[in-house]
């Protein structure tokens, strides 16, 4: 360590401070968009996975099986490099050339869908844990099957899942860093860039690490607040 040239002031200097700030903003924006994709598709597939129709259940099993068993970075490469080639030519050029923030949206889709498979699996377990007597009772009151999901099964499942959803969101937040491999300038990429411009890697990575730590702490604190309000009384 003797040869390392420490200079923490670098983090406050232009343009490096700006890089870190935009990187942090991008990480947060990316995680929220990924989470939206993950939550919507995860809920959809999770519901399908508990359907009575064996064909629908098979579709859900297939979806979860494929998306959970390929490394997220490989899935990202497939969405970024392979999918545009398979689409009709004009769509492919739109994605590769004309779409602004192409790598950002590709990451949202690729990493969001990977996470959706994990959420679907948790939701399936959550929905299965709703007592069948409760479902039958709600059917007896005249609710349709879709309404039992909307008013009975999903609200109970989501509440039970709150701690799991929190940890999945943290997984989502950390996973956003993978997008740097296709050129999204989020916080890890920015700190890496500062490292290669200034050779002050320790300072730059420390900044990124502290950002991840702080954000995770805030999320955990927020979710325990929500859990206190939303928890099912025991």
């Amino acid at each position, binding site marked *: *360590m*003797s*040869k*390392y040239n420490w200079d923490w002031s670098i983090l406050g200097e232009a343009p490096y401070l700006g890089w870190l700030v935009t990187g942090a903003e991008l990480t947060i924006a990316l995680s929220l968009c990924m989470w939206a994709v993950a939550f919507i598709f995860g809920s959809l597939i999770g519901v399908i996975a508990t359907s009575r129709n064996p064909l629908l259940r098979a579709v859900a099993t297939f979806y979860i*099986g*494929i998306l*959970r*068993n*390929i*490394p*997220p*970075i*490989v*899935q990202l*490469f*497939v969405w970024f*490099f*392979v999918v545009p*080639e*398979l689409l009709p030519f004009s769509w492919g050029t739109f994605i590769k050339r004309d779409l602004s923030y192409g790598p950002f949206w590709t990451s949202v889709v690729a990493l969001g869908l990977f996470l959706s498979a994990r959420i679907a699996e948790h939701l399936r377990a959550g929905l299965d844990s709703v007592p069948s007597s409760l479902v039958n009772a709600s059917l007896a009151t005249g609710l349709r099957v879709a309404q039992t999901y909307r008013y009975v099964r999903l609200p109970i499942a989501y509440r039970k899942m709150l701690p799991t959803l929190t940890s999945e969101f*943290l997984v989502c937040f*950390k*996973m*956003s*860093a*993978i997008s*740097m*491999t296709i050129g999204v300038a989020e916080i*890890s990429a920015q*700190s*890496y860039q500062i*490292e290669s411009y200034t050779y002050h*890697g*320790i300072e730059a*990575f420390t900044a*990124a*690490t502290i950002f*991840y*730590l702080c954000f*995770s*702490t805030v999320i955990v604190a927020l979710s325990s607040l929500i859990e206190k309000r939303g928890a099912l009384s025991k």
Partner: protein
Amino acid sequence: MSHFQFGVVLKSLPFLWSGLQITLTLTVAGAAAGILLGVLLALMRLSKSRPLSWIAFIYVNLFRSIPAILVLLWFYLLVPLIIDRPVGAFSSALIAFVMFEAAYYAEIIRAGIQSVPVLQREAALSTGLRNWQVMLHVVLPQALNMMTPVMLNQAILLFMDTALVSVIGLHDFTGTASIIATRDGKVVEFYTVIAVVYLCICLTASQIVRRLQKRLQAG
């Protein structure tokens, strides 16, 4: 689809195989050493000594809250600085994964240790065994046995995480495929093939784990 040539992948099989060997070595060595360090951390976390417990707590939570890719970058930078001479990307990546996985294994093993009934400990202590003997001969074997499926699943996650090492320039399975794919302009073919290979390996491995889990539950 007709203009895609999957034949080129066959010609590059030796390269891909060398990449896959790096991926597998990282996974096996990372999981094995990660479990050892994880046991140590779990014991520290559960020990009566406040400082030891705190160090383990901080270690585990620090590693669990930052992305694997940032951990790789950290160690790629730090390892040569600390030992004061250049080491290859492989050593850096291996050390990074061992330290990173240990945090996850520590939590799994801690849960395992805590699930061994206290009565057993008391019984073992009353036979005259010392504290460390009880841990070593009674508690840990059961904890590790019980947690084997969970630890294997964690190893599958590690297998998938090793695909990130191309970010520090190590040519693992994904890295080799990226290089050849770009060189030959055969991106579609190579990424499709490695995605399928990863899928097959992970699905097979998780099937085996599931079977093991059933057998453990039955026995």
